[in-house]
């Protein structure tokens, strides 16, 4: 009898204890997630915060020890906008160079990449796999390893100090990725579409222009974003190949002052932020498309 009466009580006590343990576990889990989130945010933000902090310091106040600007000043940003500092003399020219570089690399990568993948993937040109292998090989060679011979060759061609030498290098290294993604994406478009157009008398160029490109629009956006960000992120080739003030791009100009003693740090950081704005905006605008591009064709492991 007594055992029977005691049992439910014990059982209920045990179950409340268990429930409490579960709840405690859940709280601990939530606390863990919170702590991890805060750590991640701090870790991610600090270098970017540092950039903003220094850019907001008034001139000469960079060498201080506070963690936020006491008197935030946009002086340095105004300086960048108006080229109002000796180090920023050619800023807009250099920014235009960067833009031109990015635009040309994007355009040519998309053009060459789509033409090649159309020929290999849709027209099934014989020995197309050879071209794919060239692309694959390029993709897995570190670009910086080719910088020295590339520089020599450009010197021989008389293309040193010419933006087109950098464009050529970046197109050569960005197109393989474009070819992969286009071919992978193109598989989702039935080949019958091309064939019926062919029967209707469309020339290959018309099929490419009128059918292939419109259907490939999502992949074009993904790869275009990739190529633009690649050009915007690249430094070594621009640094080696562009050396005059009017031919250089923003990264090269920025790097010039890195190791000088009187670096105008607030101006440098303001420049760095202005330079970082376009890719961040583009990234967040095309984020979904880009992530889709990274995994296009499915990461089927």
């Amino acid at each position, binding site marked *: 009898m007594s055992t029977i009466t005691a049992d439910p009580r014990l059982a209920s006590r045990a179950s409340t204890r268990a429930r409490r343990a579960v709840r405690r576990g859940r709280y601990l889990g939530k606390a863990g997630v919170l702590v991890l989130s805060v750590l991640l945010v701090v870790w*991610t933000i600090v270098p970017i915060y540092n950039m903003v902090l220094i850019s907001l310091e008034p001139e000469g106040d960079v060498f201080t020890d506070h963690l936020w600007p006491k008197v935030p000043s946009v002086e340095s940003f105004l300086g960048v906008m108006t080229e109002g500092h000796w180090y920023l003399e050619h800023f807009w020219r250099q920014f235009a160079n960067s833009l031109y570089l990015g635009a040309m690399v994007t355009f040519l990568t998309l053009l060459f990449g789509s033409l090649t993948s159309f*020929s290999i993937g849709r027209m*099934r040109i014989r020995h197309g796999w050879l071209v794919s292998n060239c692309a694959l090989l390029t993709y897995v060679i570190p670009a910086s*390893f080719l910088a020295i011979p590339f520089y020599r060759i450009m010197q021989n061609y008389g293309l040193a100090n010419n933006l087109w030498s950098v464009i050529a290098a970046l*197109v050569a290294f960005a197109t393989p990725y474009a070819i992969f993604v286009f071919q*992978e994406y193109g598989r989702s478009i039935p080949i019958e579409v091309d064939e019926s157009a062919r029967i209707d008398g469309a020339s290959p160029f018309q099929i490419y222009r009128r059918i292939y490109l419109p259907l490939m629009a999502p992949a074009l956006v993904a790869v275009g974003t990739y190529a633009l960000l690649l050009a915007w992120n690249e*430094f070594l080739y621009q640094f080696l190949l562009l050396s005059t003030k009017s031919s250089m791009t923003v*990264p090269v100009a920025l*790097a010039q002052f890195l190791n000088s003693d009187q670096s105008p740090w607030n101006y440098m950081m303001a420049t760095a932020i202005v*330079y970082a704005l376009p890719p961040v905006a583009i990234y967040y605008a095309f984020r979904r498309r880009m992530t889709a591009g990274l995994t296009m064709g499915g990461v089927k492991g």
Partner: protein
Amino acid sequence: MNSVSVADVGRPALRWHTFSRSLRGGLKGGEYTWAVAFVVPYLAVFVTFVAYPVVYGLWMGSEPSLYRDLFTDPIYQSTVVNTVLYLALGVNVKMFLALLLSGFFMRPGRWMKVLLLIFVLPWAVPQISVFISIHWMLNGEWGFLNNALYTLFRVEGPFWLNDRWMALGSVIASHIWKWTPFWTLILLAGRMAIPLEIRDTARVDGATGVRGFVHITFPLLANLYLISTLLSTIFLLGDFNAVYFISGGGPADSTHVLATLGIRDAFDLAQPRLGVAAVMSALPLVVPLVIVLMRKLRTTEVQL
């Protein structure tokens, strides 16, 4: 006589015909011209700006005496150690973090999405901007890091970039900072691609938490993880910016990696052949990696 000559003339023509048709792969004349015309621009770019520099580089670095000079150079020796450390730690810590974080970001909820948006910021910001910022942040006297350490904890931080190991550590940490988000997104996409039924079935069968990860998730992600690791190794080997901007190879040229040493030899010391040799000395590592990667990338459908 006549018939023989006809046969003589006819045969090669016939052979040429079939040969050219096999070359065209079933495309009709005009179409074949188009198809070739479409491939030519890329092939021209490849030959002029990739294949030719590769051959030129191999030729520049083909003298054995270069390697004798190189291997006896103490800076080169420390560079090799740095490169190995940079590769071993940079790649593996980053990939492991990315693997764990991709699991973390699988959690449901709006906050996770917001957090992910913040977390990918390092990837979206150009390298040059952030690496310059990190360089100044690590300044021993005026840098933000030491200011923060002192203000918050009253700890006098070290001169991060004045010591070889701390400078190298800073470079590696910066690399991890910049590239973990990218690989997290890749692995996150890989996890998302695992069909829901598999995860649900596994959960019903009691494979949750660590066991679910070890027995279900990881085996399915293993191939992707391997390819990502190999690709990341290649990318890291060619990485110039992190070292150049953050430690500048210093103090006293002690934190160079092969990519920056090559450029230093070629342009600061005006010995381009030595620079090429420095880079070429990585070939015993690069060639097997490239072969394995090319096989893997061709046979599996993983694309990055």
